[in-house]
């Protein structure tokens, strides 16, 4: 490093713009060290320097003034500790000949000036390049420049902190030199004075093949082809009609197609039959049940917090919204600006749980897919969200109140959500009144109800934030993984697998007035959605060897090299094939009922109410609980567990529910037996109603052999159906 202390040697060193970034870069104020809630070793700094005044006081006045020695700067604890001249729990952090050390000495020599009103205000950080395509082992320098509001510019590689978000793809030195270490894509985060910017690093997997022949059904396919070209990946072949038909039914209405529907679709010779099937499935009545259930999860619809009446009211509003295909901007506006009785006006229930902070966090998570919780207490570590941003967003809800009201309810005494005339939000540290302001946008207000201004900002056609979040969510629902993943963690430092596509889907959704069925249709019509799930190899690429290809991969972690070559993108971020997704608890139970020709009865609702139509989780059912039904207490897709468990395995193998349903005296098998159906037709029907396809000759032979040796044909059918329900093929959407 150059010996010169700063690019402006004759200017005074600024505590805010020079010293603080150095302390951040050295890691002094990180969460594990002095940035912890109570600091370390009696020395506490604000987490990544969000509170300059407090940090300055701590440095100057704390520890009886021993941290700073004006007369003999080099003896200051500020320097002797990180040099390890005296014992330091954090070890050695700095070297004497470093630029950082020289800057700190210079600052001390200038009598350690503190934060002043004339400190330059940062306007933006410019990172170049914004994207680099590297081959494994190659390096590239990321340049970072700070532009201040007064027009001053300076290079900040020595002051900014550089972090790779995935070191198995690329590593970065403290000065911003990037080395590609693996394949795939990641970002290098540049953090300076509370802002984060990124440089995207792409390390191609290899050479794409056959992209020019890939049929492009719509813009989704065009943007994927571009992405595959850049990342050196190749798509696999198209899925079969059977796979397609089952897939669109499970993804869109969580309902298996009937054997007759399947047969008719397979027999149809119309070249446009897939698109027509998509349109039909979007018109099915189960659509509203399934999406009311999906959004019921997200909006935490449950009677424990909303009371039974509130829960039904919200549920009925959700069903009506999806029945009418209500534009999603209107959907969001109705929720965000709801007033009145939660028992009579469904969306009011959005405000029944918690108060301002919960509403702020739920709004950010639900409509923007942003996790703002971090910024409640300190600057968000991976996002440009400050504490002021959090509380400015909270200010939209500052005038929302709850009160009991005699206007509502049979005998009065219900409570209502209403809007006050007054109410402000103060900054928790400075106490300054914060005007309502959406994330990353100028302040916005409304004379009657501040929330209207927030809803107007969300629905503004020039603001893609909400549409991007919707596009990402629905992409995630259809592919099992969002373009941004996790699905509700949208942030600068967590880039989409295909940002151009995410932007295009958002634009398209806005252009179609937030018609979510249009979005779903666009996704389903794409060739990408119709890729095979079972064949991961790109079309045109020969298998490495027949043996390697057929050898089963043993267990997680032990990936076979042959497979890796066949498909290098192990997580399938770039959807070169269709990733099977596990059926959720309610879908699985409904699918079991469908295959067995039975119907689970839930308390309080009439027979015929399917699991996906239930309004909340408070319908006792061991099977649904074991398969990860959420309690609906947090606004996070992660609340629904899809982790496999021992209990699930036992329920499917020895559990009473499955075994009873298979052998139900009014079930599918009982009816087939009663009708004297020949064995081979029974086998066909059982495979059709569970796997949504015809059996292969091998399967048919095995099934018929099993049935022939069983003590009765009925037992044989039961064993066969039990087996089908226990296959991976049944339990996944693929």
């Amino acid at each position, binding site marked *: 490093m150059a010996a010169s202390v700063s690019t402006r040697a004759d200017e005074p060193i600024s505590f805010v713009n020079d010293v603080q970034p150095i302390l951040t870069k050295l890691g002094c104020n990180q969460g594990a060290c002095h940035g912890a809630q109570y600091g370390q070793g009696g020395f506490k700094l604000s987490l990544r320097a969000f509170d300059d005044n407090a940090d300055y006081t701590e440095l100057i006045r704390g520890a009886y003034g021993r941290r700073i020695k004006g007369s003999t700067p080099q003896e200051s604890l500020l320097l002797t500790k990180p040099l390890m001249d005296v014992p330091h729990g954090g070890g050695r952090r700095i070297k004497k000949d470093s630029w950082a050390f020289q800057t700190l000495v210079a600052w001390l020599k200038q009598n350690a000036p503190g934060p002043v009103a004339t400190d330059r205000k940062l306007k933006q950080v410019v990172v170049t390049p914004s994207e680099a395509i590297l081959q494994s082992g190659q390096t590239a320098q990321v340049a970072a420049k700070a532009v201040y509001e007064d027009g001053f510019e300076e290079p900040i590689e020595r002051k900014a902190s550089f972090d790779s978000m995935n070191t198995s793809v690329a590593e970065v030195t403290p000065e911003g030199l990037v080395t590609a270490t693996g394949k795939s894509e990641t970002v290098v985060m540049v953090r300076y004075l509370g802002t984060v910017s990124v440089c995207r690093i792409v390390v191609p997997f290899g050479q794409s093949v056959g992209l020019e022949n890939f049929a492009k059904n719509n813009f989704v396919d065009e943007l994927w082809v571009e992405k595959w070209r850049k990342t050196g990946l190749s798509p696999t072949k198209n899925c079969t009609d059977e796979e397609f038909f089952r897939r669109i039914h499970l993804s869109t209405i969580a309902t298996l197609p009937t054997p007759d529907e399947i047969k008719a679709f397979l027999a149809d010779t119309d070249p446009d039959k897939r698109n027509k099937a998509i349109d039909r499935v979007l018109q099915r009545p189960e659509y509203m049940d399934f999406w009311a259930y999906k959004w019921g999860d997200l909006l935490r619809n449950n009677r424990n917090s909303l009371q039974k009446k509130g829960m039904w009211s919200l549920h009925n509003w959700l069903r009506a919204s999806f029945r009418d295909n209500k534009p999603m901007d209107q959907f969001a506006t109705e929720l965000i600006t709801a007033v009145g009785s939660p028992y009579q006006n469904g969306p009011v229930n959005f405000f029944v749980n918690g108060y301002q902070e919960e509403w702020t966090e739920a709004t950010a998570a639900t409509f923007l897919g942003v996790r703002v919780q971090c910024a409640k207490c300190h600057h968000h570590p991976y996002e440009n969200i400050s504490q002021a941003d959090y509380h400015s967003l909270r200010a939209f809800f500052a005038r929302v109140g709850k009160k009991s009201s005699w206007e509502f309810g049979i005998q009065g005494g219900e409570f209502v959500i209403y809007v006050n005339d007054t109410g402000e939000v103060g900054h928790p540290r400075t106490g300054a009144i914060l005007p309502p302001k959406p994330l990353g946008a100028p302040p916005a207000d409304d004379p009657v109800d501040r929330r209207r201004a927030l809803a107007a900002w969300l629905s503004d056609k020039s603001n893609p934030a909400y549409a991007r979040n919707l596009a990402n969510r629905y992409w995630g629902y259809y592919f099992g993984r969002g373009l941004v993943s996790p699905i509700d963690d949208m942030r600068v430092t967590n880039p989409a697998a295909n940002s151009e596509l995410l932007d295009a889907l958002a634009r398209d959704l806005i252009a179609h007035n937030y018609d979510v069925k249009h979005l779903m249709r666009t996704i389903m019509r794409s060739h990408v959605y119709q890729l095979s799930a079972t064949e991961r190899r790109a079309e045109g690429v020969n298998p490495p060897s027949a043996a390697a290809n057929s050898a089963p991969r043993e267990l997680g972690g032990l990936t076979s090299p042959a497979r890796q070559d066949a498909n290098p993108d192990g997580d399938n971020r770039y959807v070169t*094939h269709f990733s099977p997704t596990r059926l959720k608890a309610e879908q699985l139970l409904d699918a079991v009922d469908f295959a067995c020709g039975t119907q689970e009865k839930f308390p309080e609702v009439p027979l015929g109410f399917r699991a996906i139509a239930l309004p909340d989780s408070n319908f006792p059912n061991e099977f649904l609980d*074991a398969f990860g039904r959420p309690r609906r*207490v947090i606004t*996070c897709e992660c609340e629904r567990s899809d*982790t*496999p468990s021992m209990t699930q395995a036992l329920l499917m193998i020895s559990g009473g529910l499955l075994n009873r349903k298979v052998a139900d005296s009014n079930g599918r098998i009982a009816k087939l037996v009663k009708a004297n159906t020949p064995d081979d037709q029974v086998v066909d029907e059982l495979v059709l109603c569970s796997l949504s396809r015809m059996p292969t000759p091998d399967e048919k032979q095995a099934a018929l052999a099993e049935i022939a040796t069983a003590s009765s044909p009925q037992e044989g059918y039961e*064993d066969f159906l039990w087996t*089908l329900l*226990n296959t*991976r093929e049944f339990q996944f959407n693929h």
Partner: protein
Amino acid sequence: MPNTSASRRAFLQASGVAAGAFVGGRNVFAESTNANPPAKRAIVFLLQGGCSQLDTWDMKPEAPAEYRGEFDSIATATPGYRLCEHMPMLAARTNQFNVLRSVHHGTPSHEAAIHWVLTGYDYPGANTTTKNRNDKPSVGSFVAKVKGSSQPGLPAYFCVPDKGQLGDRVRYADSHFLGMAYAPFESGPVPVDADSPYRVPQPLVMFRDMPVTRFGDRQGLLQQLDKFQRDADATGMMTGMDQFRRTALDMINHPVTQAAIDLSQETRETRLRFGSNKFGQRALMARRLAEAGVPFTLVNLSDNQDWDTHTDNFNAMKTRLLPLLDRAVATLLDELSERGLLDSTLVAVVSEFGRTPKINNNVGRDHWSDVFSVMLTGGGLKTGQVLGTSNARAEIPQDRPIHYNDVLATIYRQLGIATDRVFMHEGRPVPILYQGTPIPELI
């Protein structure tokens, strides 16, 4: 499938290759663990409802009558240390365990205290309606995550009788963000006396006692038909499900778990030795699980707030609670030592909290979290120590205050688990314990 016997044989051969989660001698569910820790397993008894410190481990014979209560103290194997007269068997064995009399966590509500005791984490506002699921993983789940199972077909974390507390309304013994894989396996209701039979939990028994041959047929057919490529799934979910399925089939085909929890394999004499009551039979179950090698067993010594003696404290303690606890725990220690298992099995008796030193108007004691007592032994710990004291009326710690998390840190340490190990949850780091250090006098 040509015939029944062939398919069953084919299946059993296949299942012998990769039994349960054990592949190539490596347990694929377990994360790394410290090599060769002193304790191989732990049994934790939870006195749910909150046990009075003054009427058990921390007698105050010199205190005024309205504090002291009606019980006398008796001499123990440890000179100068006295226990309650209704705990004679434990009194004769104080040289085999340690008592910590200055433990505190400062949380006097049942829900929050149960959460604290079972996880080491505060859960402000814990309650039975909206906040009735773990806010952090329980100790047993962390143990299961880090150590894994000790043998195929045997879960790593057991709850006896189930994971419910507070009369089944609160379930803070759960795995939270670690996932269902680390949730406890529940023994189900345990016999209430030495003569009642024990019913193995339903899913462990094949539905309606399906004949072994027919079940074998089904498994054979499944092997043949379940051809959907497992590696088509990028998330590893299919692989995970396969592992559980194999373990589940193991549990049914090679019934180690059924055997471990089957109390009918014990003689009547042994069942009587532990006490012909629910506490005794649960302690016996815990001994069987320790023998089988279960790494963590949580035993709830209460069904419905038995220890929550707001009224009639002394009658409840001397008839329904203390004699049963005394026999159950003392016998467990005896039987573990007879089998040479006590050195490798950590045993703890913990309570939600203590009870108010001053007796209330209903001859009861209320919640008191500023000081209470914990019993701890086995698993390589030193023994025979009585650590810490409370003040003259057992109100606050006097010498050597011990935060409850130090007890958990000691348990984790003996099991070879580093408590500063961090797991990510919703983007934030969560250490196994955020505070608490092993108690140096015990290790």
